[in-house]
């Protein structure tokens, strides 16, 4: 559903550590540790700013990476949302 608002489940529980181009994120809620590459880390940063619909997420990420919001980026963001939701990092705003 394109108008769903996505937000980080509890950003106060996230602890990040950056080393070169990689970011490791610890979620104190789930106890899980996640490895983010550069692009995914920018995705996370986008969500740290505010909750977003999928379209807004694509546009904000494109802006951060200084690229065009093309079909490939749409697919990437779709997959990223699925992975983050399954990992318990992301939830819809009405959860």
């Amino acid at each position: 559903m394109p108008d769903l608002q996505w937000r980080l489940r509890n950003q106060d529980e996230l602890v990040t550590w950056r080393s070169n181009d990689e970011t490791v994120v610890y979620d104190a809620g789930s106890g899980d540790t996640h490895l983010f590459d550069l692009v995914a880390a920018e995705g996370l940063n986008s969500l740290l700013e505010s909750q977003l619909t999928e379209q807004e997420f694509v546009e904000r990420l494109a802006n951060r990476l200084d690229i065009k919001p093309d079909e490939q980026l749409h697919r990437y963001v779709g997959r990223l949302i699925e992975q983050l939701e399954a990992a318990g990092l992301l939830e819809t705003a009405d959860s």
Partner: protein
Amino acid sequence: MEFSDHILLQVLRDPEKMATLSLSEWDALKPLARSTLVISKIAALAHKLDLLDLLPEQIVPHLTSAHVFAARHDRAVRWEVNRVQRALRDVNTPIILLKGAAYAISNMACATGRVYGDTDILVLKDRLGEVENSLTRHGWDTDEDNEYDERYYRTWLHELPPMRHRERGTVLDVHHNILPRIDKLQINIQLLFESAIPINGTKVCVLSPPDMVLHSAAHLFRIGNFDHGLRDLADLDELIRQFNNLDGFWDSVLDRAQQLKLTLPWYSATRYVEYLFHTPIPDRVKRTVAKWAPLWPEVPIIDRLVKRAVLPRKIDDRDVRRQMAISLLGHWPLPRLKVTMTGLFWIKRMPWFAKQEKT
């Protein structure tokens, strides 16, 4: 020495006493507290009362270890509830958290320093199939790879076989009643659902205070599960102390105990929790509850079994008498005769079916 003067019980009743213990007293206390799962409660109390600097330095790393361990359990149970809620969001049933999960989510006093095993939830019986399907879709599998065990759980107990999450390895026990079908006493579970208290307006609930304490009593003295007897009685002591000041609490408990026919478990629960932890129970309540005592000679027998079951006498080896006491308490209200006539009942108890442990 009176049993209730045991050093471990003294420390649990009066944590400040920790500061007066000698090194050899701690040496005796430590393994007992570990094996009865109360060491993390003691550690939590030591932190809360700022006693660590007053204790012998040798015990501090052990209490720190226990404290860390309990904190992990607290996080894990909260996450488990979050995941269960997510998995069951489309199933039309309230989810009543039982025991430890309920204590943690409601931030009850007894949750401090508690370690948790399985997560227990209660759902509507006619939604059980949907619940199981949803859980399976979200990563849980039935834990029993023994066909007999699986049938036993479904046929005679009050729950699905334990469900283990494929990735987290955590175990979820899904109940549809609080007493097993093999028990002659059948609870009207609808009453518990009607009184359950939602958490933050969601469909995740906890039992009402009277039901919560009665469930604890039933778990110990009707189901007879004394595997963690000391910890469970300590929980009940703290629950009672916490609810003591609620308006109408005691009258509600007495009424409910009669309504659910749990008068005998409640008699036993109050008897032992007061004996071990000096739980404050109003005299008028004690007078009413005294009428629910069983006929002689049951009381002195249960007295002995409970004392034997709550504290191990041997640390280095199997305490056979304790295991026997736990086993006897677990079978005290005997299952219906027709269950003992089935093969399932006995096969489950055969030692040859026990799995070997992995290293």
